């Protein structure tokens, strides 16, 4: 019985280690065709419907269109974590996107409530001084099937530095979603 005291935990431990060793993943490198297919899948995930509000929250399909500069989406939207960020999306062939309406909320202090945000597309640039709360901003698009919208901020700050909450990550604004406005030909 005394030996059993040590034997049982040791057997469990060794069994678990054995299972862990056997379960370690080993993956073969991809073939060229697999890489090409993966690229297609990534591009397809950026295709969005038009004339409908698209949330970019965690779990929403349109989160795939959030490009460089955004943190991982949260339950209601995604924080922009640096001075510039990009949203890239595509629309179906035959659809002409003429504008996009983005819904944003800036991270601002309780006292100094100002954040300068600039939206840029290939044909338009809109600057707005946001003062807190959600706002929708309209930006013209060039009609191409593939679109890239840049968002520029004058500064990023952390909630703790603004004396809002203990979060130490740096944010500019949170994007909740957008609507692509299009002429359907």
């Amino acid at each position: 019985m005394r030996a059993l005291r040590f034997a049982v935990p040791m057997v469990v431990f060794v069994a678990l280690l054995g299972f862990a060793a056997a379960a370690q993943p080993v993956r073969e490198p991809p073939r060229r065709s697999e890489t090409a297919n993966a690229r297609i899948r990534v591009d397809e995930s950026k295709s969005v419907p038009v004339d409908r509000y698209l949330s970019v929250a965690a779990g929403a399909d349109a989160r795939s269109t959030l490009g460089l500069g955004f943190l991982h989406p949260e339950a209601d939207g995604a924080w922009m974590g640096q001075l510039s960020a990009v949203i890239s999306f595509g629309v179906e062939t035959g659809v002409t996107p003429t504008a996009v309406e983005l819904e944003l909320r800036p991270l601002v202090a309780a006292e100094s409530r100002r954040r300068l945000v600039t939206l840029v597309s290939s044909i338009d640039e809109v600057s707005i001084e946001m003062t807190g709360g959600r706002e929708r901003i309209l930006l013209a698009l060039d009609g191409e099937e593939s679109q890239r919208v840049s968002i520029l901020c004058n500064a990023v700050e952390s909630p703790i530095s603004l004396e809002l909450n203990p979060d130490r990550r740096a944010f500019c604004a949170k994007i909740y979603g957008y609507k692509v406005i299009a002429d359907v030909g």
Partner: protein
Amino acid sequence: MITLKTFQSTGYGWRNIASCAAKYWIVASASAVTLWRSLVAGTDAYYDFLNVKWFMGWRLWNGNFELAGIASSRKWGPPFLDIWHAALANTGVWWVPALAHGAVHALIAPSVFLLSRAVVRGLPNILHQAFAAVSVLVPLVAMQIGTTSGHLYAALPIVWSLTLLARSRETDNSYSGQSCSNPQQTRGLAWAGAVLAVSPLLKPSALASMPAHFIGVPFLTGSLVGSIAFLLGFLAVYLAVAVTWAAVVALAADGGLLEIRTPGVPVDGFGLWFLAGTLVAALFGLLKYSEWVSFLHRSLRPRLVVALLTLVAALGALVAATHLRSAAYDGRWFVDDPASFVPRLAHTGDLQYGFNTLDLEVPYFDTSVPLAALLAVAGIVVAVGVMLRDSWWQDRWTAGLVLFSCAPFVFNVWATGYTRYATQSIPLIGVAALSMCSLRGWRPLKLFVAALFLIAWTLPLWWAGRTSTSFERFAQITYEQNIYEDIVNDEEVELLSDLIPDGSTVFVVGDLTSHVIPRLGRFDVTWDFLLPKGDAVAELQTPPVLLFNPAESDRLSKYEDQGLILESCDVLRFRHVSLGLCATQIDRSQIDRA
């Protein structure tokens, strides 16, 4: 009544275990709740594990000691727990690590209960059970259940070490002062020290608190020889294992056995070998010649010896605290001046000015640290009494137990200010409190004080609406919901893998990116976390790939400065994490110009 020897004498039969569980249902429930919490909380997404330790553990698991620029110095420290965590996480079955961590963490309550019953006499069984249960349910402990933070793993050897110390007391046939007069007890104390060494071997940051534990040891052993046996047991085992690991790293990675070093020990190379060898030899010498050495003990007055040893241990702790403060490993939570030291000891975790955490990354509500500080003061009072009055000598164990258990909290507030670093000692607080309540006195009053302490300690559990109720587990990257699947599932791993060509060199950029590498299981890829110089880029046969955190994409420009042209960048918004991937071309003309 259950004792330490119950299981030894009656065995481990299912009937016996079921009978004990029925009789000691509070402790059994606490263990069950611990396991349940671990599983219900789902996949662990502990920031440090995802950021560094998973990759590090996976790399070492595969015998690769080149950490490619990610926390490279960590490889010298004992990484056993990181390897264990990585091996479990990499099975790709989310509940395997949750179950394994939960099962280990579930041992805390029964371990504390057995310790409590062994060291505290004359109090009702239900109090022992209640204190043992609470030791794992208070927020600072509960928030780490099922996580890879490692502190709860490190708590067990501390509890077991004290339990072994208690058993050595049982062999102390002259409790009034002639302790450590037999070889069996000396061996027991050395074993207790050896078991304590497992704590920092599992969780290296626990090493910082060890000097504070030692303050209580002279009272617990009551002798010079006993204290030396305990200390030698600790040092010899810690250094023997740590140096052996460092030797393996030196042979595998850096090539020279004289290049070894280990974190927290101020000597390296030959000096480290010499130190470890000397301590191991001294331990064996002490065990072999303990009867001869005990003559030394008999010729000294025990109280004087204990007083001097405690003074030495306290000075040692002070030196260690000063070193930790000057090294400033993590200065975020420092107590800046002595005036704010006492307020910090009384801190229960609420936000300062409504936005600022004082001693942890997250707000919480827990009374453990203030209560431990209070107990430490009480322990000092008892210790002084033991020193001054013969009639108090029988209370030396209480003084030692309280100092051993609670001094680390006071020490840690001053040395680092980071509450997490002392959380492995929280399960001992209840035993220390019960020990104080077992001192001579009117029994109803002692029971009242114990109940009062329990109420204060459990305050966060029943005073709802405070900050601690707003989060489930410590430092998780996803706070909003529990995850019952892998952080990155097989389909997502497959997609990522397909985007990384055969034999690529991948430069990994930014935080929270490395954890996906073990899941990929790609051994054809060279992973590198360092920013390459232009020369190194020029030597690459094929253009490298950049794997990055999309929220830190502005760091990519540094790679462009080194002669890389970013060709196409994709951001993969997986369910629980986001990753960026850039294909590149090498701009040889820019490198030549540079």
